[in-house]
């Protein structure tokens, strides 16, 4: 392809900017995932509360953020929120949208995993005179953790895959930088293939990390599949 002739030298010159973009993408992924994890635990545990208002409130929040689509949420935070008087940095909008949306999905994972821990485990805790907090911390959650890792891995990859959206709200992320490279070189196929390859690589790294985490969680419980 004649258009792509200047691609490699141009790519070499663009490397520092690509590295910056990659850093922004990783930052958004990590911060978004951290917020999502916190929300997943809070909302997931609250939605198992015995008190109806607490449970109902948590369910409402979860259904709201699951039901309104990440794209609408992100654009709402970016375009509509300033009209009510709050202006957030574009990156903050992105992290908030990713965290709220995937936190809501994660809450279902936490709820399901806690529900899947056999009831006899809780009963044994009660028989030993453990309080509710101690039971949750020492008996139920460690077992639930091993069940949560695999679905969390899927969500994390989904979250990573949603980060190119950042470029739509003016964040100079990896997608934005590679798009610049594309328009300066005209090498459309090579640029996008590079971008897809980089995302694939990041997803593989995340998967490997999460697999190690799952093995560790299972090993702590002495379960099959643990290291």
């Amino acid at each position, binding site marked *: 392809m004649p258009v792509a002739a200047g691609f490699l030298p141009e790519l070499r010159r663009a490397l520092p900017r690509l590295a910056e973009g990659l850093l922004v993408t990783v930052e958004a992924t990590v911060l978004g995932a951290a917020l999502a994890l916190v929300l997943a635990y809070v909302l997931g545990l609250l939605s198992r509360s015995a008190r109806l208002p607490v449970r109902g409130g948590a369910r409402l929040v979860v259904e709201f953020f699951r039901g309104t689509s990440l794209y609408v949420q992100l654009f709402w935070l970016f375009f509509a929120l300033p009209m009510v008087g709050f202006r957030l940095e574009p990156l903050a909008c992105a992290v908030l949208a990713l965290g709220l949306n995937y936190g809501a999905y994660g809450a279902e994972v936490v709820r399901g995993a806690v529900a899947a821990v056999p009831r006899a485990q809780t009963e044994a805790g009660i028989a030993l005179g453990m309080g509710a907090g101690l039971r949750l911390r020492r008996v139920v959650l460690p077992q639930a953790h091993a069940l949560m890792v695999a679905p969390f891995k899927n969500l994390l990859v989904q979250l990573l895959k949603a980060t*190119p959206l950042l470029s739509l709200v003016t964040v100079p992320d990896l997608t934005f930088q590679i798009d610049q490279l594309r328009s300066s070189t005209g090498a459309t196929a090579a640029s996008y293939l590079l971008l897809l390859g980089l995302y694939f690589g990041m997803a593989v790294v995340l998967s490997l990390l999460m697999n190690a985490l799952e093995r560790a969680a299972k090993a702590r419980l002495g379960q099959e599949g643990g290291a």
Partner: protein
Amino acid sequence: MWDGEAARAALPAVLEGFGVTVLATVPAFAVAMLLGLVLALVQRAGPGWLALPVRGAAAFVRTTPLLVQLFAAWVLVPALDAPVLGVLVLGTHYATYLSEVYRTGIDAVPKGQWEACTALSLPRRRVWRAVVLPQAVRNVLPPLGNYAVSMFKETPLLSVITVHEMVHEANTFGSTHFAYLESFTLAAAVFLLASWPTSVLVRRLEARLAV
């Protein structure tokens, strides 16, 4: 702050965009269901040399961002109209998820069913069509429903390739009337109203089909 007048004016545009969103989701999901089944069958029943490359390609499409795939297809295949291209890319992306769903559904068909077919010496094609696939499809209906809902929620992405769906309309209205708050809040509300009942329905179906 909230302007009721602007919200009333934005509603027709948002609803029109919603119609486009729904119209795009339906054929895209049809593409995903068919192509997903083909991918699953190639991996389960196709020639051995084809299974691995197909599996790798599907994994690549599944783990890379839909937005980038849309952009890439948009610039690389200029011959296709935006809505057609969007439907094809969205359908292909989800097909790679659905093929995994079909695969688990096929694996869940009891081994005795295959053995019975062997005992009756049914031809292979008949085994798939009359015995395995009907049971597999019944197994996978609830997860298919979940993917339909999540595809519906990803359809707004088509706005980046100038398909005039709901987010596109909300954005256009917001910028021309300086009423982003009203237009995007309405878009969110319409989405919630549409996707909540659907997920409740899917959960009911799941509960009924569970053994």
